[in-house]
């Protein structure tokens, strides 16, 4: 039975990819369908199958889905890395994928960094525990592609992903984006801070925290860039952002405590600068904290993450099916449920496929329209400047 299925998908794949003579293929397909043992046991067929298994598709197509699903189910497993359940609704995403395809997940190092993800691809090469897919910051996606760590794949919805957010060679694809936001504890903070300028007021002394250190965390770099936009800097000049935090550290407003769900729940970080999707998730997760979220109107800055597939991962088909799922309308809506703006957001808003209550839970679309994204070069520049100045000015 299994053999039959495999040959069927092989048939579909060949039809899609190699566009062989249609009639010849049909004949072959019929032979396979009839279960002709001569064909299915022949050396040629076995060799073809081995080659096909080792050589997953380059492009997702509606026709190829069936084959991809079959091959992924045969692998039966997907190794993920650095996907926390409470980050951009990955918990819900993974549960939905499991339910839809019956493929199990081997979860590894949920709070790992992008560096740890790329490193795992290198150091676990050939190991059955190696990650199949990664979700990394853009600079790591570029570095990983350059180092040959990723396999190429174009999801079937590739066309509807904004041009600036994807690699034209298919090594990585931007998956979701967020904007820097101010979240605050309604019990401990009386007046809503709406701008970066507000946060410098003395009423917020000992209250302002960031999600991590800008020396090691992309989200924290984004916060400093947003602060720079609010203080006369630009995407090319993060200096005013660094000076802004130096000022807040001196006045005691900025507390160098890394925001985590625990510090939000306990009230240790009454105000937290973080991605909107993290802050919005806290609203639901910790009702007792009366967490409220807004975008700082003087510094609207956004950043995205990238999805890539391990070139030498142990489950190449499952990894591609996972990507197809992530970039399907269903997957994109699941991300939005985690308050992350999915890559195909504008396409889906245009086609009116996003449920209204979901859009209503986000801060107003008007402020999101002002969002600025930094280019790779600008991010590298900002990281270098932060590295050179942060520890002596703020630390």
């Amino acid at each position, binding site marked *: 039975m299994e053999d039959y299925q495999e040959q069927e998908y092989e048939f579909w794949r060949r039809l899609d990819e190699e566009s062989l003579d249609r009639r010849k293929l049909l004949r072959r397909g019929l032979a396979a369908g009839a279960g002709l043992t001569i064909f299915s046991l022949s050396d040629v067929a076995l060799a073809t199958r081995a080659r096909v298994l080792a050589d997953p598709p380059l492009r997702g197509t509606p026709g190829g889905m069936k084959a991809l699903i079959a091959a992924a189910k045969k692998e039966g497993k997907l190794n993920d890395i650095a996907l926390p359940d409470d980050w951009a609704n990955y918990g819900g995403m993974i549960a939905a994928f499991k339910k839809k395809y019956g493929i199990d997940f081997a979860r590894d190092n949920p709070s790992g*960094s992008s*560096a740890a993800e790329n490193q795992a691809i290198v150091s676990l090469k050939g190991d059955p525990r190696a990650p199949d897919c990664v979700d990394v910051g853009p*600079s790591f996606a570029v570095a990983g592609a350059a180092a040959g760590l990723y396999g190429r794949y174009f999801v079937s919805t590739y066309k509807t992903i904004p041009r600036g957010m994807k690699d034209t060679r298919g090594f990585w694809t931007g998956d979701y984006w967020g904007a820097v936001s101010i979240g605050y504890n309604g019990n401990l903070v009386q007046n809503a801070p709406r701008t970066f300028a507000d946060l410098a007021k003395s009423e917020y002394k000992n209250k302002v925290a*960031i999600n*991590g250190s800008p020396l090691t965390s992309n989200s924290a770099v984004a916060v400093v860039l947003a602060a720079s936009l609010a203080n006369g800097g630009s995407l090319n000049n993060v200096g005013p952002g660094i000076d802004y935090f130096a000022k807040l550290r001196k006045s005691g407003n900025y*507390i*160098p405590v890394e925001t985590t769900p625990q510090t939000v729940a306990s*009230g240790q970080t009454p105000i937290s600068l973080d991605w909107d999707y993290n802050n919005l998730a806290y609203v639901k997760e910790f009702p007792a904290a009366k967490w409220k979220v807004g975008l700082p109107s003087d510094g609207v800055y956004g950043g995205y993450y990238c999805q890539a597939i391990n070139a030498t991962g142990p489950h190449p088909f499952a990894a591609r099916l996972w990507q197809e799922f992530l970039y399907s309308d269903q997957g994109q809506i699941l991300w939005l449920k985690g308050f992350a703006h999915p890559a195909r957001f504008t396409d889906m808003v245009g086609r009116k496929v996003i449920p209204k209550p979901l859009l209503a839970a986000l801060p107003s679309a008007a402020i999101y329209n002002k969002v600025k994204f930094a280019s790779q070069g600008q991010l590298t520049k900002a990281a270098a400047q932060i590295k050179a100045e942060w*520890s002596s000015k703020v630390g």
Partner: protein
Amino acid sequence: MPFFAYTLVFLFLPAATVMVGAFQGATGGYTFDNVTEIAQTASLRHAYKESIEISLVTALLGGLLGFLIAYAAIRDGTPNWIRSAFATFSGVAANFGGIPLAFAFIATLGTIGIVTQFLANQLHWNPYFHGFTIFGKTGVELAYLYFQIPLMILVIAPAIDGLRQEWSEASSNLGANRLQFWRHIGLPVLFPSLLGAMILLFGNAFAAYATAYSLTSGTGLPLVPILIGADLSGNVYTNPHEGQALAFGMFVVLAAMMLFYIPLQRRATRWSR
């Protein structure tokens, strides 16, 4: 022999890798760039300054307090059960570090710690509004002292035990007062041990990472080990060779300490030869 193999694998080989890596560029060739970068970058120099300062302060303060406490607790005449209870407690406390220690400090002295809340709500005096914070240098020094003092007690106790009752009796028979005893007998005998113990404390604080990192979330206080951590495992940039160069710089600092220590040790032990 097994010990030699052990040190080779876990001490000398990693140290050698760091030394070589410190002089390699990103593409593999040999270069001095990593090392000269440290000398030229203000934030990296600043990190060394902070690291050395914290290590010196906690080694001297921890050494002094540890010595006094140990002397009070184990000099002749103290009941035996106090001594053993003390040694056990010090053994536990000296090994209490890292994340649990940082957590304990945050839970007691953090912005919403028990002590802070007590001061703020009962006495209406919130230390955080008067310049105090544990998420900075003071906090890290306090936390380090928590394990530095017991460590000092542990390592200095045998030396204090070696200070014989008879010497002090003999010196007072010859007409010396307590001060003269300490000036001419007690301290000279203990000095080499005190110095050695403080060097140990210095190294202990200099290399500590987890306590400071979890207390300041890696942003509150730039220490060399924290910057090495950022170089090796961050989301923003990775620069392993700079990390190795920073580690090499730590070797140099410790080596300088030893260079300072050895002649002093020689001088201090001259009388015993």
